[in-house]
């Protein structure tokens, strides 16, 4: 086949943000990867400089629709830090509840997406059906399934009542049973194993070298989790384990996320059983004094890092956001080297990108600048499924 350059991207019909990988192939194996992002670059950081802190609450939420709450917590924590205020304990607990509910919905979402990538659409349907339990809880308390508008500077805007508390605990019981089932499937189902075991290897040295984050590095045995390392909200009090495995492959990333679901359920149960009484918000001034602050959280995908520089007015001087997926992009390039083309969809999906999976594939012959055949994302996915089916693995 010779060396072929394969631009992949930049849009997928229904999922997530677009990005563009240009892959150099030697036969069917990836030799080099080049990444181009920016298709969803909206200019949010600059926009934040011309909006008040209150307006920015809603903008920050919409940096990403899946881990939106992690962003809002970082934002409010930064402002609260500059103000030098402590929010009430009950507010901390409610924030932590939402942070963990978000992790749940995100990990179930991801299991479904991963299933879809390897042709396991039944898994997609099952996990997303279960995910609806989380969506209903989020909507019950906050009023919305996505973009919960729960935070304000100084605390949270809505409280939890006894009925909510009971329903959350019931939801956890149900999800725990379902996750036990997924755990069985993940480690025993032959097709999943064939598609994920020893695929997308990321050795710990490489993960650290490129400053990667989240479940992606925890599957390479690296024990890093901001909730434990630099606790925020209620994480100093809630008992939970940092989940790692050391298989360094996509299967490891599946296992880490499934086990993290159990830990989230543990945390949520603790929060609901020990919810302190009291206020949910403290009053804060409109103008934020001059200062700077750093806040980072362990979003479902890894470390989400925010920096605030304030200037004494009601608008921020500078706001910087570094999402976890950006931190994992250099590591992806390393993971894809040596991988088969058929594995590209699942390896990319395994970092749980909050920016696209690929869709359009353009085959370019090395010695001509004319574009060759156009294959769409469904066909690349199907190529992967067929490639494995020819070797004896069918979903």
């Amino acid at each position, binding site marked *: 086949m010779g060396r072929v350059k394969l631009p992949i991207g930049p849009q997928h019909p229904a999922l997530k943000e677009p990005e563009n990988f240009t892959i150099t192939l030697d036969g069917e194996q990836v030799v080099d990867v080049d990444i181009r992002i920016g298709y969803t670059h909206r200019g949010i950081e600059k926009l934040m400089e011309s909006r008040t802190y209150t307006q920015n609450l809603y903008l920050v939420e919409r940096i990403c*629709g899946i881990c939106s709450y992690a962003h809002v917590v970082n934002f409010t924590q930064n402002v609260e830090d500059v103000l030098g205020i402590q929010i009430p304990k009950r507010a901390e607990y409610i924030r932590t509840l939402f942070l963990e509910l978000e992790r749940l919905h995100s990990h179930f979402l991801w299991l479904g997406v991963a299933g879809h990538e390897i042709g396991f659409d039944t898994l997609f349907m099952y996990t997303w059906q279960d995910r609806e339990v989380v969506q209903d809880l989020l909507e019950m308390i906050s009023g919305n399934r996505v973009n919960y508008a729960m935070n304000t500077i100084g605390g949270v805007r809505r409280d939890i009542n006894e009925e909510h508390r009971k329903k959350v605990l019931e939801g956890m019981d149900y999800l725990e049973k379902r996750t036990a089932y997924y755990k069985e499937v993940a480690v025993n189902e032959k097709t999943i194993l064939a598609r994920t075991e020893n695929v997308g290897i990321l050795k710990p040295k490489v993960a650290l070298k490129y400053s990667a984050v989240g479940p992606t590095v925890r599957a390479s045995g690296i024990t890093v989790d901001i909730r434990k390392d630099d606790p925020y909200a209620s994480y100093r009090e809630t008992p939970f384990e940092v989940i790692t495995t050391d298989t360094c492959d996509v299967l490891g990333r599946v296992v880490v996320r499934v086990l993290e679901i159990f830990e989230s359920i543990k945390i949520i149960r603790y929060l609901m059983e020990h919810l302190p009484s009291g206020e949910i918000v403290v009053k804060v001034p409109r103008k934020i004094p001059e200062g700077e602050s750093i806040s980072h959280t362990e979003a479902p995908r890894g470390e989400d890092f925010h920096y605030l520089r304030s200037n004494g007015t009601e608008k921020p001087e500078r706001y910087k956001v570094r999402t976890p997926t950006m931190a994992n992009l250099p590591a992806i390039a390393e993971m894809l080297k040596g991988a088969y083309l058929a594995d590209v969809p699942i390896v990319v999906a395994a970092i749980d990108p909050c920016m696209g999976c690929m869709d359009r594939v353009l085959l370019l012959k090395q010695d001509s600048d004319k574009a060759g055949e156009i294959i769409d994302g469904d066909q690349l996915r199907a190529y992967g499924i067929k490639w494995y089916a020819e070797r004896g693995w069918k979903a």
Partner: protein
Amino acid sequence: MNCGSCNGCDIEILAALIPRLDVERFGVLLKGSPRHADVLVCTGPVTKQMKERLRRVYDQMPEPKFVVVVGQCGSSGGIYHGAYGVEGGVDTVIPVNAYIPGCPPRPDAIADGLIKLLAKIDKGGKP
């Protein structure tokens, strides 16, 4: 087609496909290529980087074709209005037949909008 969205709308569109709502029973099928599609569902404010690609995808669709915009951002740029990376709503680039507002709209609202559009098409008018 994600034209620059935060994914909120995209996820709710997918949530309309799962058994709980299952828009497939209304005859709505998700296709991977614009060449096989009758309806283009767009999310997100159109970023400057995506503008040409959106036009190209629209041009690749065979007639008759329809465009549905899901969410505030696609309708008007939404909360990103004024951001330097954003071109504007989808209708600044291609003609739009239906708008489903929300941030994001619930899966039921998305299904409702799609069904209304399909009903209008069935009746024979161009919506």
